[in-house]
């Protein structure tokens, strides 16, 4: 800690920060633009000017920019003297000379950092009389809207896009008053983190396009703390609602996980909740039915054996309720055959070692990635690893007495001070291209090398009998041995448990200095790891059971075509099937009970680290929808099974915590704390929005004892610091930058309410995993097909969001150019494998292991083979047909978007009011 004097008052601040950061940490209002807590300082905007004095006697002082000045013991500055105040006002005045008269029609309005800073500096009247510069906008894809006139040239966008996230198709162009931030030409922004520009840009140059289509001001939206549903990282998001529909997802600061940024799948994927394909009605054999119908009651109440199929897309509570209802011996955790083994192993590893949070990953000084493409399977994790790659450069500048947050200096020395990244695996990706040590191999070889690597690091580690450590493995062993903070990353994508076991062995060999992270595919995959500890049924066992006796099936929703096809087979054999459906699917189940989406009810999931995270409802349920667990409780009552006594979510969670002691009081809320209002203090239109339906303003519906209220009646988020914030706002700070008012320092101590329990107690002593020959010696003929993922397409849930459907990639088959030559194929041709109906577009890449092909199959298609021998290439006619089919689909997407848009606008006017008290 050092003591500094600001406006003659003494403050204690921690060392190593810059003055701007220190002022903001002290909750003093100092305007700024170009500085960003995660991106460091470059001193581009001069907005944060303050006066520094030599000593007490100095009365003139000199002007400095706070973000470029490290705090020093005894430093004296003034923020509010006449000189610097005038200077800051003039900086804004200059920025405003060419700023368009747009606020009323600007989607940033009401949460604009530029508006806030302008008010803060006191600038109010335009002094410039000349004509304004104007710019043409670019088309940047379906996610982001460009309105270049509003730019204040702070350079944050390119610094984020290029430096922080590694994109290269956005750049600063031209000069002076003509400075332009855009692409070379119109086109979709390529980076999977492009959506963050919306929050990074302090003005309305980049705005959220899908949100803009169905727009509402920030002050008008009821928000809820929520969790991203699209991968196992479990980034914290905030969902906003207006007139009964969810409008957008924004980043919710979390010190451990996402920090300030999300990936685009998370930011835009939530939109599936507004999909017209959402199940809204109870159905019996395809026809709308009512709960009271006798036939339905008979079906649901039928005795006999029930088998439950859980889903890693459903909440922990739903899966647990299902498991309780049918019994652990009748619970199948999912329809993917490879997954249960991975689940089991992931759980076992979590019981031995804690896993690194993203914040911890950013501290690494050596990284090993074993057979996983985290750029696609856990995008935000890849972004964290990217930041770790700067650590050596940061150490270097520090040794030269330059602070670590001097971003330009760090980037200057980066090429000569790389953090070693070791990559074993296949496929091209951003991290792969930056690897220092690379070994191109399939998952089996990667696992084998992993085991051998552990053997190189420790004598005790079991190694496979066959195979030799490659040169890369010995290099890797050397690097990891010398690293202070090595990070080991793997995942489930290849479907090979050996990779997980290998990583655990390397972790054990390296000891506690190493950190481990394993990416799971779905947001709640690890939740199922917890539930199946007491036993489970595999998909094969379910099939067998169905063959032997009449069995009723009870299924939670699955979001992939692969599971869907398995399910279709099972349904045929089952006596009857009841589906708890979120989205309409083909296939004939006997009864369908519509479940509420994550935006409409509370729930929890366990992320890759074993961290339990809960979400709150942002809007109300519509139609017949109910939370999955609630349907299951009703079923339990009809069938007189355990669970029948559960009245509310609290009791269910209590039961869950009883079964899994470690969960303890994850969900306990302090009953003496007042409820938090989900609506901001200036939420407008309350006495008019329902007036066309009733002028008697109905009382807002309130869940009893809920820690959040879907109304203004509760304390605002600032006054309840122990609960996750629904939205971030502070007087004078309407933009997302207000978050610094809630935190001590960037990635400092966690925000209140964010220290969540870990579902797996690390009580077991660690053990070595033995190599199993079956992990590598699978029989096969022809070429092995290795699975590949894509950001937009591999997750079936986000694929239901129109913007993401528009961007999703079509099936691809990658091969080496040599192989393509041999097979007589060319890039871009459409290919079929063996007799599978799926057409895949051939791609050429050097990053394909010998004797293998890489197949990316979107979640709404399936390729149920792991190897193939024969290929069929589409002829001209077929290719045309495929293209036409695709065009047709895109046409359909656009059409559906149109109808959805008018449907949503209609709903705004006639808000579904089923759950509002005082009306029925």
């Amino acid at each position, binding site marked *: 800690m050092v003591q500094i004097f600001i406006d003659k008052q003494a403050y204690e601040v921690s060392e190593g920060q810059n003055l701007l950061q220190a002022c903001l940490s002290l909750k003093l209002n100092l305007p700024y633009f170009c500085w960003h807590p995660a991106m460091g300082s470059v001193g581009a905007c001069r907005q944060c000017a303050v006066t520094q004095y030599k000593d007490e006697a100095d009365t003139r002082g000199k002007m400095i920019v706070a973000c470029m000045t490290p705090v020093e013991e005894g430093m004296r500055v003034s923020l509010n003297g006449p000189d610097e105040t005038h200077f800051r006002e003039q900086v804004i005045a200059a920025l405003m000379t060419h700023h368009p008269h*747009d606020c*009323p029609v600007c989607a940033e309005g009401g949460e604009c950092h530029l508006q806030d800073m302008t008010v803060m500096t006191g600038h109010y009247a335009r002094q410039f009389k000349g004509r304004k510069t104007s710019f043409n906008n670019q088309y940047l894809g379906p996610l982001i809207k460009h309105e270049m006139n509003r730019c204040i040239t702070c350079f944050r966008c390119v610094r984020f896009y290029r430096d922080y996230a590694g994109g290269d198709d956005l750049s600063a162009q031209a*000069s002076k008053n003509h400075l332009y931030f855009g692409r070379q030409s119109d086109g979709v922004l390529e980076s999977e983190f492009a959506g963050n520009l919306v929050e990074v840009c302090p003005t309305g140059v980049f705005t959220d396009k899908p949100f803009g289509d169905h727009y509402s001001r920030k002050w008008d939206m009821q928000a809820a703390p929520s969790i991203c549903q699209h991968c196992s990282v479990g980034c914290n998001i905030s969902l906003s609602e207006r007139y009964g529909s969810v409008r957008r997802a924004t980043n919710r600061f979390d010190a451990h996980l996402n920090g300030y940024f999300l990936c685009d799948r998370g930011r835009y994927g939530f939109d599936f909740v507004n999909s017209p394909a959402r199940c809204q009605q109870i159905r019996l054999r395809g026809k709308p039915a009512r709960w009271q119908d006798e036939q339905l009651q008979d079906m649901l109440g039928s005795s006999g054996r029930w088998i439950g199929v859980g889903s890693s897309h459903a909440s922990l509570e739903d899966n647990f309720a299902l498991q309780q209802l049918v019994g652990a011996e009748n619970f199948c955790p999912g329809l993917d055959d490879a997954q249960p083994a991975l689940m089991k192993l992931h759980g076992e590893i979590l019981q031995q070692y804690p896993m690194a949070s993203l914040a911890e990953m950013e501290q690494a000084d050596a990284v090993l990635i074993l057979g996983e493409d985290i750029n696609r399977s856990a995008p935000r994790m890849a972004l964290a690893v990217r930041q770790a790659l700067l650590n050596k450069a940061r150490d270097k500048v520090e040794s030269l007495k330059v602070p670590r947050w001097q971003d330009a200096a760090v980037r200057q020395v980066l090429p000569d001070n790389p953090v070693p990244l070791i990559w074993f695996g296949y496929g091209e990706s951003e991290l792969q291209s930056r690897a220092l040590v690379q070994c191109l191999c399939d998952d089996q070889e990667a696992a084998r090398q992993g085991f051998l690597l552990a053997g190189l690091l420790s004598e005790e580690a079991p190694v496979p009998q066959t195979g030799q450590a490659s040169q890369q493995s010995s290099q890797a062993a050397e690097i990891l041995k010398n690293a202070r903070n090595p990070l080991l990353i793997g995942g489930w994508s290849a479907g090979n448990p050996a990779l997980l076991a290998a990583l655990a062995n390397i972790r054990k060999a390296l000891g506690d200095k190493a950190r481990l992270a394993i990416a799971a595919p779905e947001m709640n995959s690890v939740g199922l790891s917890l539930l199946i500890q007491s036993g489970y049924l595999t998909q094969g066992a379910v099939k067998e059971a169905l063959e032997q006796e009449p069995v009723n099936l009870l299924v939670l929703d699955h979001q992939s075509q692969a599971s869907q096809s398995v399910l279709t087979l099972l349904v045929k054999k089952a006596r009857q099937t009841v589906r708890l459906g979120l989205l309409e699917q083909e296939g004939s189940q006997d009864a369908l009970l519509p479940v509420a989406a994550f935006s409409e009810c509370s729930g929890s999931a366990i992320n890759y680290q074993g961290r339990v995270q809960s979400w709150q409802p942002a809007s109300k349920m519509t139609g017949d929808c109910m939370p999955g667990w609630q349907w299951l409780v009703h079923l339990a009552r009809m069938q007189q099974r355990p669970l029948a006594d559960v009245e509310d979510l609290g009791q269910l969670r209590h039961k869950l915590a009883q079964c899994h002691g470690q969960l303890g009081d994850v969900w306990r809320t302090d009953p003496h704390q007042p409820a938090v209002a989900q609506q901001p203090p*200036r939420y407008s239109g309350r*006495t008019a929005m329902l*007036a066309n339906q009733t002028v008697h303003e109905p009382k807002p519906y309130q869940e009893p004892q809920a820690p959040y209220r879907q109304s203004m009646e509760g304390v605002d988020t600032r006054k309840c610091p122990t609960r996750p914030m629904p939205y971030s706002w502070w007087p004078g700070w309407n933009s997302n930058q207000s978050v610094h008012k809630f935190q001590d320092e960037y990635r400092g101590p966690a925000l209140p309410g964010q220290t969540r329990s870990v579902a797996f107690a690390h009580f077991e002593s660690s053990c070595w995993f033995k190599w199993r020959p079956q992990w590598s010696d699978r029989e096969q003929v022809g070429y092995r097909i290795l699975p590949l993922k894509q950001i937009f397409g591999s997750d079936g849930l986000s694929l239901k969001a129109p913007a993401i459907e528009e961007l999703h990639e079509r099936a691809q088959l990658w091969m080496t150019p040599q192989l393509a030559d041999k097979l007589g194929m060319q890039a871009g041709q459409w290919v079929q494998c063996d007799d599978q109906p799926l057409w895949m577009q051939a791609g050429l890449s050097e990053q394909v292991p010998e004797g293998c092909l890489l197949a990316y199959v979107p979640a709404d298609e399936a390729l149920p083979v792991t190897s193939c021998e024969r290929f069929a290439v589409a002829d001209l006619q077929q290719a045309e047909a495929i293209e036409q089919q695709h065009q047709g689909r895109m046409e359909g997407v656009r059409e559906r978007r149109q109808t959805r848009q008018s449907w949503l606008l209609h709903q705004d006017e006639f808000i579904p009011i089923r759950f509002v008290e005082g009306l029925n």
Partner: protein
Amino acid sequence: MWSQLVTIWRVFVHLFDKKDTVQYPEQKPYLAPRYRGRIVLTRDPDGDERCVACNLCAVACPVDCIALQKTEDEDGRWRPAFFRINFSRCIMCGLCEEACPTYAIQLTPDVEMCEYERKNLVYEKEHLTIDGQGKYPGYSFYRKAGIAIKGKAKGEADQEKPPVDVRSLLP
């Protein structure tokens, strides 16, 4: 005693003053144009809707009786998809008019708004919109704003230079 007599005299003299009370409703008092009565939505000089659905009136309203939803038309203009004022809640304070950046929402001197049914006091956009410009003729927001709409490309707003050629090397 004297002061009481003076008071009585003054009251007596008032009997011969000009009368302020009028025989409403047969006779109507003059209300200034700035009088705060029934609210209307006006049009710009070209006859287009002035309201851009910015929501500022709604947020300024102390009784929260304005609700609207933004939509964007083919021509690039922001418009309210619906615009509702619940006059049974409105207190005619005029804050919405103060807040409106486009002069769209204006209060008029029409104060005769009694209804037997409260729900008849709920006005939608079609009830609120008038054909004229109201008290502030001549102002068109889109002529000042930087966004492009149909009929006004980038650089064609008042006080705007033509769009920059980013490829040019000249400063």
